[in-house]
């Protein structure tokens, strides 16, 4: 916590069965910042977020939220500690209504109507869709609901896995704007993205992941001045 880190991952190893996917990964998320994880397909970005959530066990290393060790906790205790997760591909409870998905978010940390209203003020469109089955929402609406559901936890840390995947530019702008608003409210965010142009406007720092190992972490201004790192780790400039 010395440098204002709200979440500190160090030396993290993770496996799927016998196959090792993360090798001694280190990450530091500072309070109130947007840290972007960038890396190729299969680099281990999603696995990193799942390991933080306790959904993939950490074989070695530590994950600390404000100094509290999370690796020993059962997965369902991690969100209660204050980390909210927007999974890749949204993973809504598709058979349930918008209202029920939001309710599940609220139940996680026993939040009530005031939190719900604050979240719906961020995504007013969801009010009109309240009783609709979430599986029938458009892709953009589903992404809004996935974010809204996560924000119902009033999290200290928000994990966003490719929220702009498959969305049109206006929707991407909306998501980006929301991430900016959350930063103003003091939420610290880890944002996984494929494309660097999607993150430069919102991120504070960018951490590159390659083959399950973290490479350098750089500020966005550095990256803007010299985008060579992007080419090196992601393969596009």
């Amino acid at each position, binding site marked *: 916590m010395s440098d204002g880190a709200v979440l500190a991952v160090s030396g993290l190893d993770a496996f799927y069965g016998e196959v090792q996917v993360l090798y001694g990964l280190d990450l530091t998320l500072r309070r109130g910042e947007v840290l972007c994880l960038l890396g190729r397909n299969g680099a281990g970005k999603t696995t990193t977020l799942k390991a933080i959530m306790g959904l993939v066990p950490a074989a070695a290393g530590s994950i600390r939220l404000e100094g509290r060790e999370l690796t020993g906790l059962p997965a369902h205790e991690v969100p209660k500690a204050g980390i909210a997760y927007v999974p890749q591909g949204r993973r809504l*409870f598709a058979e349930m209504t918008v209202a029920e998905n939001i309710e599940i978010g609220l139940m996680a940390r026993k939040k009530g109507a005031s939190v719900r209203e604050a979240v719906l003020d961020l995504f007013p469109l969801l009010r009109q869709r309240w009783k609709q089955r979430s599986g029938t929402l458009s892709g953009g609406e589903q992404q809004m609901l996935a974010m809204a559901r996560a924000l119902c936890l009033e999290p200290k840390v928000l994990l966003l896995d490719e929220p702009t995947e498959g969305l049109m530019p206006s929707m991407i702008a909306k998501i980006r704007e929301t991430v900016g608003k959350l930063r103003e409210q003091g939420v610290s965010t880890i944002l996984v993205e494929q494309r660097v142009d999607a993150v430069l406007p919102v991120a504070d720092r960018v951490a590159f992941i390659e083959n399950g190992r973290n490479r350098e972490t750089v500020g966005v201004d550095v990256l803007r001045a010299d985008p060579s790192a992007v080419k090196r780790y992601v393969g596009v400039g």
Partner: protein
Amino acid sequence: MAFGPHLLLAVLEGLVTAAVLSLTALGLSLVFGVMRIVNVAHGEFFMLGAVLAWAVANALGGHPALGFVAALVIAPLIVGAVAWLAERLVLSRLKYNPESTIVATIGLLYVIQQLALTFYGPEARPVAPPFSYRLSLPWFGYSAYKLSIIAAAALLLIATWLVLTRTKIGLTMRATQYDSETAQAFGIPVGRVYAGVFALGAMLAALAAVLIVPISQAHYLMGQDPLLLSFIVVIIGGLGSLRGTVVAAVLIGVSDGVVSMFFSPTLAKMIATLAVALVLVFRPQGLFGTAPR
């Protein structure tokens, strides 16, 4: 007796079967729906409910209603506790692997059956009905207790439906069913949900057994028929669909009552088996099930 009253009697008998069957099958369907586990020991939870009902009623003595009401509360609770233990000690350690859990529940079937044989014995024993009032219809007299079974099952089904659709517990169960990983990411302790669902499924079977034991008898092998019929109902109705389970139970129960009375019980079983075959061929997801995603 004329044809009309005869048919009415057959339908009433069929509805009693349907009532007990829908409760039992609902338990099986819930467990499969939420946990993706085929519980082969489900019929033994039914048997255990009936045997415990006899034990409770016998231990209490006094007025039959007293023993019956006590059995209606105590037997399902004990059966639920046994199921909960089996889930925590066995199924959860198998990580709910579909094949291993089938083998494990077959083992559980024999363990429960042999324990019943050892401690309860091979006899078939009756439990006195809580009341023995006979309703006199113009054509025949009919046991009021049998009608009350239908009413009790209907109430229990409605209660289960309300819990599933209107409460936070139900929401938690459905979230676990659709996507257990995401459910955990929202603070839902899926292990505990699984244990609860397994216990609830067993308790529904036990309740059905306590209801039926005053008109049948408690016996250590009585779990086999309900298991088979529950599978039939669940296949026809569609797994995980409460509505499908009830519709299929009524269909199977009433056709069983009518065909058994006018033709023969064997023909009734043949028709049920044929219905399963037809459903499997033409609508494998069941009448009310949704195709797998």
